[in-house]
């Protein structure tokens, strides 16, 4: 038995290059220090993404992306298809948990300054992945074609339309026409199952390649402590030590997903009616709440700008600064600049948390 697996390995090695798989497994290590726990959130996000791909493919077997059929097909999945309720609820819950773990991953990388040289592109590819994941959330939200998602899509695309010059084209491109109609549903379906998966796969490959090539970042403080000999430079092998811990986390996540899906099946709401008023208490998914609440507070005019465009501009500028942070916070150490960016991160986190809480009130 042992000799057979050795033979197979040797056969593969002859074709892939000497010991490449073994080399890869043996050489990757994970630093061990008091912040090691944060290293798990990237892998967790990846695992939940795999769950999304698998459950998404299953949903494709019954879902129909037209305004007359979409709501009914999801209803059919939820009530008629065996374990349909489970698959759809896991898809919805896993989507939300994935966005949550992606945010945790992002903030932990931010506060531990893991974006610093030479990992600028890892940060940028990660931020782009987060934007695409939010795109997944926004496009997927419309697919059941219910009242809430219909108005959320109206508002979200109308905001894109408030951009000067290109806004009108962008709005028509997103909606497939002037209004949110069945054409929008078909388009969003295309984004959700073809355009975004393609883009995310490419970016994810780049992100993982960079992580693999550059190794895990050690936070500046731990790095300094190691340099000054106050702390030993401990590492654990990625395979099998860290990987087994990853798997334990994933196994637990599967249990959590199953429990959430069983105890809190995802609601379907009522079918979108293009000629009904927006229902009271309408709000977007939790990860857009801070933007939604900001929109509520913005007056019709901010200086000479339309209120929603001013808001969009402010969020756009904030996102640009956030993406460019490896280049702005370039002398990461313990100086004033780096403290400023830590403060900025705390402010951003606080703003998102307070605004979201106000929206839920």
């Amino acid at each position: 038995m042992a000799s057979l697996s050795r033979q197979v390995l040797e056969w593969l090695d002859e074709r892939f290059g000497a010991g490449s798989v073994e080399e890869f497994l043996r050489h990757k290590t994970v630093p061990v220090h008091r912040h090691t726990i944060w290293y798990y959130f990237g892998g967790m996000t990846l695992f939940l993404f795999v769950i999304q791909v698998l459950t998404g493919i299953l949903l494709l077997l019954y879902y129909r992306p037209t305004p007359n059929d979409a709501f009914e097909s999801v209803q059919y999945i939820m009530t008629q298809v065996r374990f349909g309720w489970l698959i759809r609820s896991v898809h919805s819950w896993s989507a939300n948990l994935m966005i949550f773990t992606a945010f945790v991953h992002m903030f932990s990388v931010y506060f531990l300054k893991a974006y610093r040289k030479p990992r600028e592109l890892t940060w940028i590819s990660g931020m782009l992945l987060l934007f695409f994941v939010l795109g997944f959330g926004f496009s997927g939200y419309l697919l059941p074609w219910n009242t809430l998602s219909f108005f959320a899509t109206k508002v979200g695309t109308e905001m894109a339309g408030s951009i000067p010059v290109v806004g009108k084209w962008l709005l028509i491109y997103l909606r497939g026409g002037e209004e949110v109609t069945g054409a929008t549903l078909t388009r969003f379906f295309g984004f959700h199952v073809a355009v975004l998966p393609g883009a995310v796969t490419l970016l994810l490959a780049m992100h993982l390649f960079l992580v693999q090539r550059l190794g895990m970042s050690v936070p500046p403080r731990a790095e300094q402590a190691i340099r000054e000999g106050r702390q030993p430079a401990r590492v654990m092998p990625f395979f099998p030590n860290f990987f087994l811990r990853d798997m334990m986390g994933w196994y637990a996540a599967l249990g959590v997903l199953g429990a959430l899906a069983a105890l809190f099946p995802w609601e379907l709401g009522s079918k979108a009616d293009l000629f009904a008023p927006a229902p009271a208490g309408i709000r977007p998914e939790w990860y857009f709440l801070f933007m939604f609440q900001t929109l509520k507070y913005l007056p019709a005019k901010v200086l000479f700008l339309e209120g929603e465009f001013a808001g969009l501009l402010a969020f756009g500028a904030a996102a640009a600064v956030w993406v460019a942070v490896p280049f702005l916070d370039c002398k990461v150490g313990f100086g004033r600049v780096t403290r400023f960016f830590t403060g900025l991160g705390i402010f951003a986190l606080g703003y998102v948390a307070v605004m979201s809480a106000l929206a839920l009130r």
Partner: protein
Amino acid sequence: MRNPDRPTQDSVQPGRRWINVLLGSGVVASIVAFLYPAIDYILPPPVAESTSRFVVAAKVDELKNNAGKVFKFGSKPALLVRTTEGEYRAFSAVCTHLNCTVQYRSDLREIWCACHNGLYDLEGRNVSGPPPRPLEKYEVHVQGEDVVVTRST
């Protein structure tokens, strides 16, 4: 000896440079020509705007005083309101802020958008919240059993 395939910058003859420019712009132009139909394909063909200038919004006995109803006017929603005095008013139901559909709030006696808490008075004027402009106002006539809403343009 100069490699004829890889000319250095200073050895390029004027005629050769022209050929590069012509070939280069030809390739760029052809790529634009390939992309143009694809980009045009992405933008949907315009849909003929409904030109109907009037619609029967409700029957006379349908709305009580201090009540409202959203109805379909062409391709867009519109709002018919009957005031506490029994007078009919009609507006576009598309919120001028971000395109949500507004509704009549009998408790406030105002027109309300649930999406971002915008308020309009019964003249359609934006009185509070984020809406930047008033709602478009329509004319209302009662013809026999029908409440008919007409737009001017």
